[in-house]
């Protein structure tokens, strides 16, 4: 667990909106992620968690600071970092099978690793839906396909940008279980962005609590509840309270003052 996969140091990123106003999405972010870890970034919207994930994916570049993957600087997207988005990431013109096989096909590995596609279809429990097109399957199934499609490249990092954000709570719990199973199975390091506290506790080894404007990491929490975790456990709830407290401070809510 000790060897570092990802090292982020001093990363800042500022955007300019339509009116040329500077929006400081990230300021001086530093963190390390170890191999096989499940890490979650949580925070209110605008705290830069998606920006951070995009920087790690190589879809964006920081203005300052360094992002290192195994000591090598990240530049541009690469199949060694899988990327799953909230919604609509599947190619609507490709079947479930072809979506999952996409990474293999563009890298010219399809013939050699055809069996992998079948393996992942089985892993995500979508046997019989191989020929279905994305609009013919449910949102939960589509997200499972998106995760399998990213995992088939056997990435060092799997970056999950609120992959369960648009799902109902039952489907969400189902995918969370599936995600843990895939995490165990593939041994990939996973980075999740979410605003769901329960989800963060249920899945993560560590939780990064972020604050908005400018986006900063405020607090890091280690979740030491052993797997399988119970969503209604006592330690679950105490951790939940801790995070909510942190988040309440994070969003700079005015503290009620009682003067008696």
């Amino acid at each position: 667990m000790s060897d570092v996969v990802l090292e982020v140091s001093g990363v800042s990123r500022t955007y300019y909106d339509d009116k040329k106003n500077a929006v400081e999405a990230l300021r001086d972010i530093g963190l390390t992620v170890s191999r096989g870890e499940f890490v979650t970034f949580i925070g209110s919207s605008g705290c830069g968690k998606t920006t951070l994930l995009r920087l790690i994916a190589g879809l964006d570049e920081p203005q300052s600071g360094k992002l290192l993957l195994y000591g090598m600087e990240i530049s541009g997207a690469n199949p060694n970092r899988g990327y799953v988005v909230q919604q609509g990431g599947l190619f609507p013109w490709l079947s479930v099978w072809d979506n999952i096989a996409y990474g293999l096909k563009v890298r010219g590995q399809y013939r050699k690793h055809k069996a992998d596609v079948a393996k992942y279809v089985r892993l995500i429990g979508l046997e019989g839906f191989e020929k279905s097109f994305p609009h013919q399957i449910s949102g939960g199934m589509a997200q499972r396909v998106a995760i399998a499609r990213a995992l088939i490249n056997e990435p060092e990092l799997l970056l999950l940008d609120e992959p369960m954000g648009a799902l109902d709570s039952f489907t969400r719990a189902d995918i969370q279980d599936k995600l843990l199973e895939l995490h165990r199975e593939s041994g990939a390091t996973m980075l999740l962005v979410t605003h769901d506290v329960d989800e963060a506790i249920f899945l993560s080894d560590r939780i990064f609590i972020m604050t908005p404007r400018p986006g900063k990491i405020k607090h890091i929490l280690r979740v030491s509840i052993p797997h399988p975790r119970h969503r209604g456990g006592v330690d679950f709830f105490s951790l939940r309270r801790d995070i909510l407290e942190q988040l309440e401070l994070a969003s700079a809510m005015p503290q009620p003052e009682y003067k008696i």
Partner: protein
Amino acid sequence: MWGSTPQAAPEWGADVSKTAKQIPTQILKQPSNVRFFFGAALTLIGFASAIAVNIAVPQVAKVKIAEYEYFGVTLDFNTLYRGVIAGIIAIYAICGVWAYFDNDRQLKYIKRAPFRFVLGIALAAWDILGTKYRLLPQPFFPGPAQIVETFLNEPAFVLENMLYSLRLYGAGFVVGVTFGVGTGILIGWFPKVYYWVSPVLRITGVIPAVAWMPFALTLAPTPFSAAVLLMTLCAWFPIASFTAQGVQSTAKIHFEVAKTLGANTAQLVFRVAIPHALPQIFGGIAMANGFMFTTLVMSEMMGQPGGLGYYIQLSRVWSAYYKVFAAIVIMAVLFSIILYIISIVQGYALRWQKGLVKQNV
């Protein structure tokens, strides 16, 4: 800025009977055998009356009825006309037997029965007015039997011209679609190409391609290649602009996801942008097809050594209007078949859209 939305593009040759609206009625309606046989009888009676009229009504007006001999059989236009209608009856009879054993097919079969009945009656009436009594202005409106005479008169020549048109259409379609889609992708992908080419494209779009005919005929090495050039020109605007719009409207997220999956730039074009643009590309082709038919016939009428347009022109000079009609009928059948084939290809290529959009693919 690229005109109407691609989904609203006219659906040439679309099979209307396959619309989603029909599904509930198919479940609800159970045609009785009585209704089915009534429909079949309507079809039969309609066409049979056309034959009966042709046999029974005496030839009052003075029309020269020439006899032709093919394969040892002596035919005049009346016998061939009856034969053609008998053939139509036979086809509908076979379809009827095939439809009888399936509920959905039965419904589909009887749906058009009243139309077929009226068609048969109309043929009979036209026969009387056009040929038997010659009440319609002559020689502009010959009867249906006289139109059929064209195929007795010069079948080889008609076939030759038909094949010329087909060949010209095939060449024009391939070159036009390839050029249109190719430039459309470049315009959609490279902002520089968009800047320089799209004004030219838009100007070209408002000029009817046949206006370039004098230049095409002098500049192109052969009349054939001149017509191909004109067809390419008329297809360029709709196909290229729709294709460019399809490429430009590809969601950014799809490019990003493809990049993280390992796609290189060429694959971003060929495995993301083009598949995404396919519905628009087909919309453009459907639109261009109409222009291409027009340009094809116009250029044949104005300077080709063959083709159905040439045949029309030639027959007109001799006041053989029944041949003009025959050429028009051939065009109708030929172009319908072409549109049908394209709609099948489109339906297969866009099968992923089925149920996703309202468009009937």
